[in-house]
């Protein structure tokens, strides 16, 4: 993306190793987590998933010592978390929770600045970092820095929660069902934002979810748990194509082919070129370009864009040059959107084509229902080949 969005200094990601960790709560008949061993490579997203009570959140909280394991060892870049003072350890691990937990008496800026302040960063560095993060999550610092959490929507709050967790550039991030308290549309947007962020700033992420679709979409590695035990740990494609046993197969669900659509993103498809026309282009020159074969209208319409290439509206050929209407382009899909979400959006809008945009909102092409269903012939095989 833009150069200003790149973080200062090289982003860090650590290797996270869980070695045979168990946890039994006092008075409990069985272990909440039993002999869990798991290695998350640097920069990978590992989703812990399973039915409620399977021990996924307990496992997550043992990494930053909010819960102490009864036995076993947890290492970050080879150093046992037990050798660190809990407060120091936690300042180096990003933490995002479902309830968000922004401090309501502090501004957005102060919330994001929390950990850098605890670490004693100089003021200008905190200011620069907070501004950079706010732009990264799509909240303009000038407008939002001095707002309070109560003045933000649920989705914006969780964005700030994400920025706060990233503030001190921690090598490891823990995310406990971060997007499950928001509505489905906001959730999808947050997931896409997170994926884009993660691509720019790779972190080792442990992500707890109860939603298999979310797991397949977000994960490099899915760890399915049940009754405190790890049942299967595999990349999403492998989980879908070769579930280890009937429990995993049931958990993944019968519609595995359809779920495979979550493994492929729009940017993995060959997109159809969009008939783009910059706003204000004279009708005459549009017709000339069409005559020259440089522009092929779609269903006798062209897509009018603003000066930065962002789609504004569809315009029928016979109405070229008329003033802008209010009709919005729907759906507009970020290119990191999974085929599954894209298909849902197309059906939702009742549209045959969706406009695909990059992180800055500029149009990069079109995607049709046909192109998506065409990929159904083997999305799993395709993503394994990629």
């Amino acid at each position, binding site marked *: 993306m833009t150069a200003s969005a790149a973080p200062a200094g090289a982003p860090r990601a650590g290797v996270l190793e869980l070695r045979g960790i168990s946890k039994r709560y006092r008075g409990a008949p069985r272990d909440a987590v039993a002999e869990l061993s798991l290695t998350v490579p640097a920069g990978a997203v590992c989703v812990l998933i399973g039915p409620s009570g399977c021990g996924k959140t307990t496992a997550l909280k043992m990494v*930053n010592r*909010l819960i102490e394991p009864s036995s076993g060892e947890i290492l970050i870049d080879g150093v046992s978390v037990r050798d660190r003072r*809990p*407060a*120091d*350890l*936690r*300042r180096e*691990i990003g*933490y995002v*929770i*479902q*309830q*968000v*937990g*922004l*401090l*309501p*008496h*502090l*501004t957005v800026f102060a919330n994001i600045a*929390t*950990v850098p302040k*605890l670490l004693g960063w100089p003021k200008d560095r905190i200011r620069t970092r907070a501004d950079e993060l706010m732009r990264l999550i799509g909240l303009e610092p000038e407008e939002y820095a001095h707002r*309070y*959490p*109560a*003045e933000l929507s649920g989705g914006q709050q969780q964005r700030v*929660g994400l920025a*706060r967790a990233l503030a001190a550039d921690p090598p490891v991030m*823990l995310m406990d069902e971060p997007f499950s308290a928001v509505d489905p549309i906001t959730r999808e947007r947050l997931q896409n934002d997170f994926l884009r962020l993660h691509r720019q700033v790779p972190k080792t992420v442990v992500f707890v979810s109860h939603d298999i679709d979310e797991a397949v979409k977000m994960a490099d590695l899915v760890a399915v748990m049940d009754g405190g035990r790890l049942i299967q740990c595999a990349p999403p494609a492998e989980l879908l194509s070769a579930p280890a046993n009937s429990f995993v197969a049931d958990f993944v669900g019968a519609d595995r082919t359809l779920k495979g659509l979550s493994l492929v993103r729009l940017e993995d498809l060959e997109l159809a070129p969009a008939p783009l026309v910059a706003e204000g282009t004279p009708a005459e020159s549009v017709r000339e370009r069409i005559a020259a074969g440089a522009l092929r209208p779609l269903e006798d319409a062209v897509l009018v864009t603003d000066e930065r290439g962002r789609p504004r509206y569809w315009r029928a050929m016979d109405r070229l040059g008329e003033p802008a209407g209010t009709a919005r382009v729907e759906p507009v899909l970020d290119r990191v959107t999974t085929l599954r979400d894209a298909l849902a959006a197309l059906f939702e809008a009742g549209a045959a084509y969706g406009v695909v945009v990059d992180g800055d909102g500029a149009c990069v092409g079109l995607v049709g229902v046909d192109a998506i269903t065409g990929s159904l012939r083997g999305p799993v095989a395709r993503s394994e080949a990629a």
Partner: protein
Amino acid sequence: MSPAGIWDAFNDPNLDGWHQLWIHVRLSLEALVLATVIGVTLGVVAAKTGRVTGFVVSAVANLGRTIPTFALLALAVALSTIGEGPTLVGLVALGVPPVLLNAHTGIREVDRGAVEAARGMGFTPLAVLGRVELPMALPLVFTGIRVSAIQIVATAALGASVGANGLGVLILSGLANADDEILLAGAIPTALLALAVGGMLALAERLLTPRGLRLARASRPTKTMRSTT
């Protein structure tokens, strides 16, 4: 009886209303400071030490509020001597429960998500208390302090019956001499003082409540702050 008569009674060098007013204010202030320190401390401890302790402490505090202050004063006199000492003890005992109960409730009702996030970001337990829980409980604690202050100022007049100075001296003297002007020269300033203190603390509460919390309260009308009056 006339306003001028009341004013003259208040300024009578034998009664010395200004001096009594000053004693009244000083005594109330001392009691309020002590009650706040004790109430907040006990409230925090109760909120932090689990359900059972919290229940016991708030039950005792609630019970304490039902004991008539006059009985408390009598008890304090019986246990020590007459004068300012037992009056202060009685006023503190009266002032502690509202502060304690509100501090307890305030800390208990702090959003668990905020506390967990703070711990997860590396706040030490003391920092969680000082920078998350107490600021978020502040509006409720302040309401408790305001309630205490009004009760203390109004009740300090009773101290005169056990030998303490204060505006109560004028009230008692007025009663004993069947002189309404003297009685009112004590009673009116007491009432005005209570009103003024209540108003001042309400203003301070508004000014000291962080803006973010006021907004959060406004956006969640169902969870209004309770006053313990």
